[in-house]
Structures are given as C-alpha cells and as structure tokens.
C-alpha cells in the first residue's frame, strides 16, 4: 500500500485547443485534507473530475489508492478499463458538487440509499438504517421524507454529503461545496466537513473559504492557469505567499 491516496504526476488536459491543465502535480496522503484554491477557470473542477475519471486526462500518470485511474498497465501497455470497472472505482470516491445535484424526484432518504441499493446491492432496510444514521450525523434526522426542493441550500448540501458518505468512500472530493450558499448557511456545511476531516477521511476540497483552509487543511495547493503555482503548509501558503499571483489572488478573496 502506498503512502498516497492520490498521486498525480504531470497531469495535462485540453478541451479542443484550450489547455486547461498543463502538467499538474499533486499528492494527497491518506487521512489528510487538501485544499485546492485558485481563480475561476484555473482548472480546479477539471482536476477533481479527472481524479474521479468523470473526465479523461490526456497525459501524465494519475494514481488513486495505488491504482492507475482509467487504465491498467500490463506488458508495458496501457489497457483502458472496462466501464463497469470504472463505475466500481468511482463508487469508492465520494463527490460533492457546488450545486448539490440531489436527485430531485427522490426523497432525502432515497437519495442516500439509492447508491447503496443499486450500486452496492445492499438490502433496502439495511441501507435505510445506515441512511438514518448518516442523517443524524449531518443533523437532518427529521427530514428523511422531504424532497430536496423542500430544503434550504445548506440542508441540501448536507444531504449530498450524506449521500456520498453512504458509499463508504476512501476519498471525498468537494467542488466548491459552499459557493452556492447564502452566507449564513455556509457554517453548517463547513461544520459537517470539519467533523468529517477529524474522523480521518481523506479529502480534497476546492474552496474559497480561506478560514476553513487554514484551520482544517494539511496542505494547500494554489492552481492558476492550469499549473500549481504554489503549495505547502496552509499557514505558510496563505499568510506569506511567495508568488505575485497568489498574493494578488489572496488580496481578492480575503
């Protein structure tokens, strides 16, 4: 078993002629929280989506839990993985989106159980019990029968976190989980995330919440125009940035 949950070496990705990622290196140790910051359009979402193989990277090596993402190395050749294998690996990585993306036609409880039942094949009653436990954990035990449209943004995002946790992921990816929330609702989501971090979950969090990064992150990466400009200890990166770009970025978000 390697030391790293995520090990990205020289990842490149382009859409048409636009180079979105230009050789990104990123390493996430097991049990650590990594915050990814950077201006809009710098490629943060693209990087997260590559880790989950929602996008294919064009070049570089990407390992999750010691295994190549999307490919298998055999006899010095890279074999593309079959789609059911890719689904299997995705199901072991939780993902939380900026716009929640809860299934609008399902109740809160069904949102959480659907992955367990349909992807993992867990019995419905067992799944429901586990879902209730998760709802308690995110402080929404009395909302199981509601539909997402009946919840506030903060509540929806907490359900989305519970939905991802239901799959018992080894890694959680958060893509700006609080950016679509009213300011007074940000705290309740960050609290759940802090809890999760304290429980030892490996997390990569794209965020503009510098307070959260400083308090919770073990490492901060600053991504700008498809390259990692700066990375390291949050205190050092956020309080005494070396590059002009990071200085400029921080002066805008703080």
């Amino acid at each position, binding site marked *: 078993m390697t030391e790293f949950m995520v090990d990205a070496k020289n990842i490149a990705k382009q859409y048409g002629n636009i180079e979105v990622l230009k050789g990104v290196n990123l390493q996430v140790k097991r049990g650590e929280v990594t915050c990814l910051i950077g201006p809009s359009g710098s490629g943060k979402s693209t990087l997260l989506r590559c880790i989950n193989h929602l996008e294919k990277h064009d070049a570089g090596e990407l390992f999750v839990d010691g295994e190549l993402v999307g490919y298998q190395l055999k006899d010095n050749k890279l074999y593309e993985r079959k789609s059911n294998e890719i689904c299997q690996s995705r199901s072991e990585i939780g993902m939380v989106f900026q716009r929640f993306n809860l*299934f609008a036609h399902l109740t809160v409880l069904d949102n959480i159980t659907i992955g367990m039942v349909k*992807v993992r094949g867990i019995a419905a009653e067992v799944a429901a019990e586990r879902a209730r436990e998760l709802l308690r954990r995110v402080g929404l035990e009395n909302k199981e029968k509601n539909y997402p449209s009946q919840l506030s943004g903060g509540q929806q995002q907490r359900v989305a976190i519970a939905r991802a946790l239901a799959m018992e992921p080894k890694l959680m990816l958060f893509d700006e989980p609080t950016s679509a929330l009213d300011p007074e609702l940000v705290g309740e989501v960050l609290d759940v995330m802090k809890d999760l971090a304290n429980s030892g979950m490996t997390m990569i969090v794209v965020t503009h919440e510098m307070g959260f990064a400083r308090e919770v992150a073990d490492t901060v990466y600053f991504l700008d125009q498809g390259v990692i400009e700066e990375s390291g200890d949050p205190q050092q990166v956020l309080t005494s940035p070396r590059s002009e770009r990071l200085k400029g970025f921080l002066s805008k978000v703080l």
Partner: protein
Amino acid sequence: MTTDGDTTYRVVPVRHYGRWVAAAVIAVLAAMVVHTIFSKIPTGQVACSTTNGVRACHAVMEWRFGWDVVFQYFTSSLMLKGLVTTIELTLIAMFIGIVLGVLVAIMRLSPNRLLSIPAWIYTWFFRGTPVYVQLLFWFNFAALYRYIAVGVPFGSAHFFTFDTLNITAFIAAAIGLGLNEAAYMSEIARAGLISVDEGQVEAATALGMTRAQTLRLVILPQAMRVILPPTGNEVISMLKTTSLAASIGVIELTGAAQNIYASNYKIMDLLICASLWYVIMTTILSIGQYYIERHFGRGALRNQPLTPIERLRRDLKGIAGKMHTSRPGVVR
C-alpha cells in the same frame, strides 16, 4: 382595511359589469343550443283519429336527435365489440409508440452517429407521411414483401419465415398507428430527456451508476414530468385516430357504427352513439392523466397542489366555517 391603526373601513370590491353581460349572453346561447338538442320536430306526416264522430288531425313529431335510436344501439353487442377493439388498438399502438419512441429518442441523443442518424431518419420519414397512407401501406404490405424471413444476411438459409398475407387489418392498423406514433413520441421523449439537468447525470455517475442505471433510475423518472402531459394528449388523440382503421376494414367503434347504419340508414344517430363512447373514454383518460402527472410531479414543487376533490372538500369546509362565524365584509 386599517389606515391609521384605529379606524376600520369597509372594502368595496370592483364590480365587473362587462363580465356579467358576457356571462348572460353565453347562458342564453347555451340554453338555446340545449333546447334544440332536446326538442321535437315535425316528421311531415299527419296522424288523424276520429273520436265521437269528430275527426282530428295533428302533425307527427319526433326527437330532432334520435335519442331512442342512440340508446338502443349504445350497448348493442356490435358497438360494444367495436368499443373493445378501439381500446385494444389504442393500447397496442400506444405501447409500440411509447417503447419505440423512447428508444428512438435515446438513439437520437447518442453521441454515436450510427445511432443518431437512423433515429433522425425514422422520425423524418414517419412524420412526413400521412398516417392514413401508412395504414394502407401496411395493409397492402404483402404486395411488396411476400415473406419476412430471419436467416443468414443475404444468404439463403432461413430459421423463421413469416407469410405477410397473415397481416390482418387489425395487425396492419396496430403496426401502422404504433410506428407513426413512435415518431411523435420520440420527439416528446427527447424534449423530456434533455430537460433533465446535467448535474443529475454527473451525480449519478459519481455514485458509480452505469449509463443504463443513470438513464433508468435518474433521467427517465425526472423526464417523465415533461413527457407525461403531451403523452396524455397523444393517448387521447390516438383513441380517436384509431377510427381511421375503419377504412381498412377494422370493425372498431366507428366501423361498427358504419356497419349498423349501412343497413338501417340511421347515420346521424349511430355517429352520435359512437361519439358518446369516444367522449366517455376521453373523459376517463383525462382524469387518469391528471393523477399520473401528479404522481410524477413529486419533488418538482415545494408543495403538491390539491386534487380537485381535495379542493372541493376544502371549499365546502370553508363555506361551513363561514356560516358559523359570519361577519360583515370588514377586513382588519
């Protein structure tokens, strides 16, 4: 209404005189139409009788609409058989239409051109030709292809052969109506599928669902909300379009009416008789449509609207409540 917190004023609602006049005109016109429907007209014959040596004559009257004939045939076995055939034809054609239509829509949206182009051609062709012509085409299919066989492509070995002379009028009608419907349903289904937010697919994929699972468990149920209302219209429309099958000899409702009036010449009465059945069935379908749409609308609105029955109950309760605490029209 309070203006300074102490004085209360009576609120006088706006009077809509124009609306009252319009309502009165419509009510009179409606009464006249109803009167003509349920009135008698002279037949042109005169009936005479002699009582106590006095001969009296009067014109013989009859109902303008032959209601007696209508109800005499309304539940006759031929009409009822026709009714069953109409329902069967509607169900089979809609089944073919919906299943094939959703399939064509999914193909249309596929990134694979080998799937999307044939799907486009299908819709183009079947929407471009009249359904009546299509029915005649399927009915006379044997003239083009005498046998349909399953075997080695371009080879001579066959595992299964179908004699196309076995295509009855009913089968031709069911296939024709169903294939034509699929073209329209595919457009309806496509609109529904693309109405579902991309984030839903992303979330399902991130959970590890396969493409098929995502489609079945996440996209289709949500697309239903958009697909169902026009599909309900299609069912209602299909129920009536099946009457075209009479032209190739299927004895459905209209065909049955035609068969009966061919021998007794009561054309209008039997057409009314058939129409009554159509109206009854479309009414039932409309009610069913309302509740099915409600079911698939779950989660789309914060609060489910009340059903008409629930609304009626609430209104009655409201009236009963008002009678207990009746107060003048003063709002505080």
